[in-house]
């Protein structure tokens, strides 16, 4: 077993060796290095064919038509293109946008930008388990709502939203539905026909593909129009100009092919590991799970170990690569905005750790993780004045703390 153990698959995944092998075929003079837009020679034709195959593989994963796939640099760009592109195109119809407080910053910051441009944004408050109910969306939809952007799986807490229900509501309201599927693609089933989604963002590096590549699904029936954000050679039907990165696109296609073939077996294995980890730590005192357990992606578990500060725990767990919702791991000194939106106390948000499990995680690694988590929680609680107070039966919320 190699240390440290990687348990941060929601941040990024290693490239699958099969994907890397595919990628290398499109780089050197011996390979198919051509520009897919070159129509006049076989170098171009070969590259174009590789792009076509990849487009097909991505479309296949989500039951879409290959012509509905636009390549981008990643989910951040896809989110920007989808939300700004649709808002700008349909801005004459209305200026109202709906999203939620637990979206990724790529969505929230894009919405903030649109607010500066004169759009009005409603930020839905999720339930305490992280779910945004269809009823909440229904209540927020208005005649002038042009875009709804809600994520499929949350990056911090892994909860799965009811996209199909959002799809019904948005279609009935003639509103564009954009879904950020960076954390769900390749991990849970996505069927664009059944879900009635108009725009979906994908990221290569969250599904064992390379960084720097992503995709945007743009529905053709009904036809969704976008105002381009990147202008140039008219690539990707004018929606996203820029020479196609053949090697990255082929790699993303291969990653999607593997995901489609192996998803159900992989999910079963990953879920067993996740449950093993959870069972290994959940009998300790004052351990809280953040986010719904009923609607949750297999690879994610987000736990608050009360009375232990998250960053010091991350430091103690130096043999585990995990991330924390503690303020101290961010430059902003604010604890996780996602956990706060769930109504979690700041203390619990500061004490949270996200474990994300994936394709290459082993049972041995999980068992080792459980062992060192237990040791260090004990050690840090022995050092924690709040733990002492809890043990003495003092309610720490009753104390008048001197806030800084």
């Amino acid at each position: 077993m190699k240390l440290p153990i990687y348990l941060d698959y929601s941040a990024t995944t290693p490239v699958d060796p099969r994907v890397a092998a595919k990628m290398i075929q499109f780089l050197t003079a011996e390979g198919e290095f051509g520009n897919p837009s070159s129509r006049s020679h076989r170098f171009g034709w070969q590259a174009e064919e590789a792009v076509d195959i990849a487009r097909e593989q991505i479309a296949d994963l989500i039951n879409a038509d290959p012509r509905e796939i636009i390549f981008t640099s990643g989910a951040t760009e896809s989110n920007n293109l989808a939300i700004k592109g649709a808002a700008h195109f349909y801005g004459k119809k209305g200026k109202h946008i709906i999203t939620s407080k637990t979206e990724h910053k790529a969505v929230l910051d894009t919405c903030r930008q649109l607010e500066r441009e004169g759009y009005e944004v409603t930020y839905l408050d999720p339930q305490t388990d992280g779910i945004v109910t269809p009823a909440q969306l229904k209540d927020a939809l208005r005649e002038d709502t042009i875009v709804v952007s809600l994520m499929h799986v949350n990056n911090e807490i892994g909860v799965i939203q009811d996209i199909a229900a959002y799809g019904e509501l948005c279609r009935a309201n003639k509103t564009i539905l954009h879904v950020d599927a960076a954390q769900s693609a390749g991990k849970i089933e996505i069927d664009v026909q059944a879900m009635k989604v108009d725009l979906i963002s994908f990221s290569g590096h969250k599904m064992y593909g390379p960084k720097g590549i992503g995709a945007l699904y743009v529905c053709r029936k009904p036809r969704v129009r976008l105002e381009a954000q990147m202008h140039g050679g008219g690539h990707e039907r004018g929606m996203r100009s820029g020479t196609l990165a053949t090697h990255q696109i082929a790699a993303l296609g291969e990653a999607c092919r593997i995901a489609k073939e192996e998803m159900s077996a992989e999910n079963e294995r990953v879920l067993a590991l996740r449950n093993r980890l959870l069972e290994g730590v959940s009998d300790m005192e004052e351990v809280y799970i953040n986010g719904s357990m009923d609607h949750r992606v297999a690879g994610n578990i987000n736990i608050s170990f009360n009375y232990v500060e998250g960053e010091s725990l991350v430091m103690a767990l130096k043999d585990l690569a995990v991330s924390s919702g503690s303020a101290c791991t961010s430059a902003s000194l604010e604890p996780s905005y996602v956990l706060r939106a769930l109504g979690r106390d700041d203390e619990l948000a500061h004490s949270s750790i996200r474990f994300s499990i994936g394709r290459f995680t082993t049972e041995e690694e999980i068992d080792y993780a459980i062992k060192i988590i237990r040791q260090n929680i004990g050690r840090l609680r022995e050092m924690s004045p709040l733990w002492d107070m809890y043990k003495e039966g003092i309610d720490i919320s009753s104390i008048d703390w001197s806030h800084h």
Partner: protein
Amino acid sequence: MAYSEKVIDHYENPRNVGSFDKDDQNIATGMVGAPACGDVMKLQLKINADGVIEDAKFKTYGCGSAIASSSLVTEWVKGKTLDQARAITNTEISAELALPPVKIHCSILAEDAIKAAIDDYRSKHPNK
């Protein structure tokens, strides 16, 4: 975030973790910070009849830098008079531990903990 070796040393081998009886007349207790901010430091000093700090203990809920700052001050205050201890500043603490700018508040908290403990002692012994 990369930590200095001194922070890691204090974090992995914290000095003087523990508690004294806070009701003891010779014990001064200072508790500063707030759980919502992610840092709570409890510093306790054992002070002899000559007004010299004989021993010190701490418990801290907080990040590695907060734990290291409190561990460091328990070492520094020992053998000092109350006035000498009060003169310890956060800049000395952050310089010793090579704290990055975002962690300066940890050293401020440690300085505040010393002052809070001394204030507690003076409230128990108004004449000293």
